[in-house]
């Protein structure tokens, strides 16, 4: 089996603060890989570096054999991503969001239409394809984002907390598609989550990151065994401790609050 993602000695510093501290891991092609850690552990920072939107301070990354700092376009063609926060255009319809994505990824028009139908049917949104995304619920948006991330047939799918804030039905559906993709279409999946029970159920391999360092990796079973815990959640607590982590509110979070106030007033 070949490696879809290779990370060697990766570091990201923000001034004096070390967000990611000399981490190394590999993700085997076709596997579902869970990247676990408490808030502020460095999960999202790592995903940003893997997906070309953040420059590493040092270290080496290969995604599908390409270096995100040098071969940005090859890397970008190789992956699809569902971000932690929504990244849809609310003022467009679901079908238009899909079409725009296809155009950005140079998928031919006829193929775009065909795949949009297939994928929207897969996530159960085909009937609502001409509705504006602003009318969608959180769960529908997430399903649409999963469908969109698959439109250009990526080799690897990044999911940053794909099930956060969703009801059990939607969570089950989403993991259902992800399993299907992995097993039937051999898409490699790299996800983060805070739901250890989900990670235990779907991940082939996991790595636990804390304070910017990888503290454990292996199969969920091997982690439970090495920590002598019955559940992955207990194993996770055993590895990362009981202290509650505070994450700084990002500028984006603060602005989202403002945005609601501003938008409402219809200011230009």
């Amino acid at each position, binding site marked *: 089996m070949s490696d879809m993602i290779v990370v060697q000695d990766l570091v990201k510093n923000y001034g004096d603060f070390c967000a990611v501290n000399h981490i190394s891991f590999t993700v085997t092609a076709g596997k579902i890989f869970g990247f676990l850690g408490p808030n502020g552990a460095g999960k999202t920072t790592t995903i940003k570096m893997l997906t070309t939107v953040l420059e590493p301070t040092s270290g080496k990354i290969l995604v599908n054999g390409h270096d995100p700092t040098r071969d940005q376009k*090859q890397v970008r063609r190789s992956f699809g991503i569902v971000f932690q*926060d929504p990244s*849809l255009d609310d003022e467009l319809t679901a079908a238009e969001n899909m079409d725009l994505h296809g155009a950005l990824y140079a998928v031919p028009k006829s193929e775009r239409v065909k795949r949009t139908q297939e994928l929207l049917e897969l996530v159960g949104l085909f009937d609502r394809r001409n509705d504006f995304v602003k009318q969608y619920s959180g769960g529908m948006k997430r399903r649409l984002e999963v469908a969109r991330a698959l439109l250009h047939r990526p080799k690897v799918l990044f999911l940053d907390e794909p099930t956060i804030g969703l009801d059990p039905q939607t969570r089950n559906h989403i993991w259902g598609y992800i399993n299907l993709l992995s097993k039937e279409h051999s898409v490699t999946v790299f996800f983060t989550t805070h739901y250890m029970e989900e990670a235990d159920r779907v991940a082939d391999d996991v790595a636990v990151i804390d304070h910017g360092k990888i503290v454990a990796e292996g199969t969920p079973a091997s982690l439970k065994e090495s920590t002598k815990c019955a559940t992955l959640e207990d194993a996770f607590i055993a590895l990362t401790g009981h202290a509650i982590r505070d994450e700084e509110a990002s500028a*984006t979070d603060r602005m989202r609050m403002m945005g609601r106030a501003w938008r409402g007033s219809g200011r*230009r």
Partner: protein
Amino acid sequence: MRAIYILCARQLKRYVRSPARIVGSLGQPIVFLLALGFGLGATFAKAGAGNYFNFVTPGIVAMGIMFTAVFSGIEIIWDRQFGFLKETLVAPVSRLEIVLGRVLGGAIVAMIQGCAVFIVCLIFGFRLEHWAMLPVALVFMFLISLLFTSIGTAIGSVLQDMQGFPLVMNFLVMPLFFFSDALFPMNGLPKALSAALHLNPVTYGVDGLRGALGHAFAFNIATDLGVLVVLSAILLSIGSYLFSKIQL
């Protein structure tokens, strides 16, 4: 090219779909047009300077364009906030294509808004001397749109959130509008004000528009075009550069 086209089309779609924004953006220019255009008309005519309503129309059109264009550029902040920016930044297209698509889309939107303001001016009594010059006026409207969308894009790439927006409007866009020839003629001004007018790109934009719409040019068409083209190119470059430096 495909990316530029699709992002440009997206801006237009969003604009056409929010009639509230279109109508809302007409409010400010209309208030200026009616209050100043009719309010100062008698004084202006008594001073022997002609029809003030006709004089001020190009300035009001420029105003409509400037505000819409800066806002279109600054919309990057909204897209950052609502997440759509990420979708474009991880796509296999260059930042330059993204920024060109955005700026072009924003500029076209601003130009349409300028046309809407112009139609309002026609309804309230503006007299166009030579319809054949209308294409020249459209060129100037597009250049003003391009210049200010580029400025908005540059600012939107640097600002992290919307908190700085009133700062931009009150300390950049408003002064650029008021310290130009939009509302008053250039002759007989105090030296400092006259100097400010000469350094202000809006002055050249309004002058070009005014000339094309049937008044005398204060400079000449070549100077006006030259200043706008060169400044638009410079600001578009700065905007593209700053946009290329955005990290998530």
